[in-house]
């Protein structure tokens, strides 16, 4: 996304991708909403969309559920993607805009003059090359090396890390028109998701806060246990396994330096409640691309020039990230009993929007004791 908007604005862009195929292997639950797509210029093609859903189903620990329509369901509900094709669509858009693209090529080191980043050393097909450039963009995800090499602090506290595992399960009997979120102690400090790919197949995954993990492979064990105990999923068989981790931290202090900027999970721009990052990352990446196009025209990639990106992405998503991080800190402390009461209350009173504020307001009206811990959000 950064490459596309930078190239569109006249910058010479090279995308360096360490994998041999764009979008594979998938490391994603693949749920997004459609509300933001136009704002970043994404026109989805049919292959990129696995399923369009009507909304979200929020499931309490006792099995009771609350349904939300797509419009009210927030950033991760509306469309279940085929990331393998979606990522290629974004790459194609970038190439069409003028970007160059190298696969099976790893960035191994930043080139620097003092504190200023002046390029990147790459390894490709047995050759090592130095690529000089005005700005290196670190879009290298959760395990980002680029930020660390540049001395940008992206380190995470254990409570701000979610460990994840997912099956693409087929031969199941899920609700194919709703993205399902299972709350409570079945996934301590996180949730289980069931995102439909079609009538008999879904991404069934789990995310758990690192501080809630006790034994090795707990994440997979919790998910396996859930699947075995759910009659709809029990007979399912996996078509794909996905593992990984995502950041669920407060916004980082700095995502730029002289000749360097970070986007996506490399810049910790993931929603701390849902663990979803596609929309935030694309929004920030568009700003980055536009700022880099201007920096190219002005021949100025100094930290001062890239400050426009820092301001731009923060104007768009920082408040939301910070608010949701604070809410996450509270949510992970809630008991199953509280979750059960919250879902029961939502069913009683309804809610007009899936925002932290709307939900808390709706609950406060009926059961103020349930939201005592969340007073600063009201």
């Amino acid at each position, binding site marked *: 996304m950064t490459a596309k908007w930078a190239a569109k604005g006249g910058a010479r862009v090279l995308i360096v991708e360490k994998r041999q195929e764009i979008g594979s292997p998938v490391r994603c639950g693949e749920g997004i909403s459609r509300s933001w797509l136009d704002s970043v210029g994404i026109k989805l093609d049919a292959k990129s969309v696995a399923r369009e859903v009507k909304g979200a189903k929020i499931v309490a620990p006792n099995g009771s559920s609350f349904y939300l329509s797509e419009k009210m369901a927030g950033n991760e509900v509306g469309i279940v993607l085929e990331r393998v094709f979606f990522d290629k669509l974004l790459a194609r858009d970038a190439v069409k805009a003028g970007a160059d693209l190298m696969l099976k090529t790893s960035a191994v080191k930043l080139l620097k003059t003092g504190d200023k980043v002046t390029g990147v050393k790459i390894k490709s097909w047995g050759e090592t090359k130095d690529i000089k450039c005005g700005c290196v963009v670190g879009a290298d995800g959760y395990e980002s090396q680029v930020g660390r090499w540049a001395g940008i602090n992206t*380190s995470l506290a254990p409570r701000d890390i979610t460990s994840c595992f997912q099956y693409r399960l087929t031969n199941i009997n899920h609700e194919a028109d709703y993205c399902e979120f299972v709350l409570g102690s079945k996934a301590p400090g996180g949730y289980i998701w069931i995102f439909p790919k079609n009538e008999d197949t879904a991404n069934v995954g789990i995310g758990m806060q*690192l501080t809630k*993990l006790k034994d090795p492979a707990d994440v997979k064990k919790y998910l396996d246990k859930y699947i075995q105990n759910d009659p709809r999923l029990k007979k399912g068989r996996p078509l794909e396994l996905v593992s990984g981790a995502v950041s669920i931290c407060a916004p980082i202090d700095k995502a730029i330096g002289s000749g360097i900027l970070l986007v996506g999970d490399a810049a910790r721009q993931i929603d701390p409640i849902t663990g979803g990052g596609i929309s935030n990352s694309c929004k920030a990446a568009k700003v980055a691309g536009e700022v880099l196009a201007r920096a190219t025209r002005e021949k100025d990639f100094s930290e001062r020039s890239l400050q426009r990106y820092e301001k731009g992405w923060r104007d768009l998503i920082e408040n939301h990230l910070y608010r949701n991080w604070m809410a996450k800190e509270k949510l992970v402390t809630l008991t199953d009993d509280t979750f059960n009461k919250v879902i029961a209350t939502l069913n009683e009173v309804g809610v007009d929007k899936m925002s932290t504020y709307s939900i808390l307001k709706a609950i406060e009206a009926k059961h103020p004791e349930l939201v005592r811990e969340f007073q600063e959000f009201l």
Partner: protein
Amino acid sequence: MGKELDEFDVDVTKCMHCGACVGSCPVNAIYLNEVVLEFNDDCTMCKRCIKVCPVGAIKLAGGR
């Protein structure tokens, strides 16, 4: 390089090469080249990598 051999065992039948351990390492001591995990001498043995691995592929050498 090379702490993998003396301090950690990485079960290659379980490792998904997902990078969860790499991103979680507080001192950037883990290197993943898509196939092999290596630990360098910056490792402080905090064992966060063991905890975060979704599939339990990393353990201390000798089952300690």
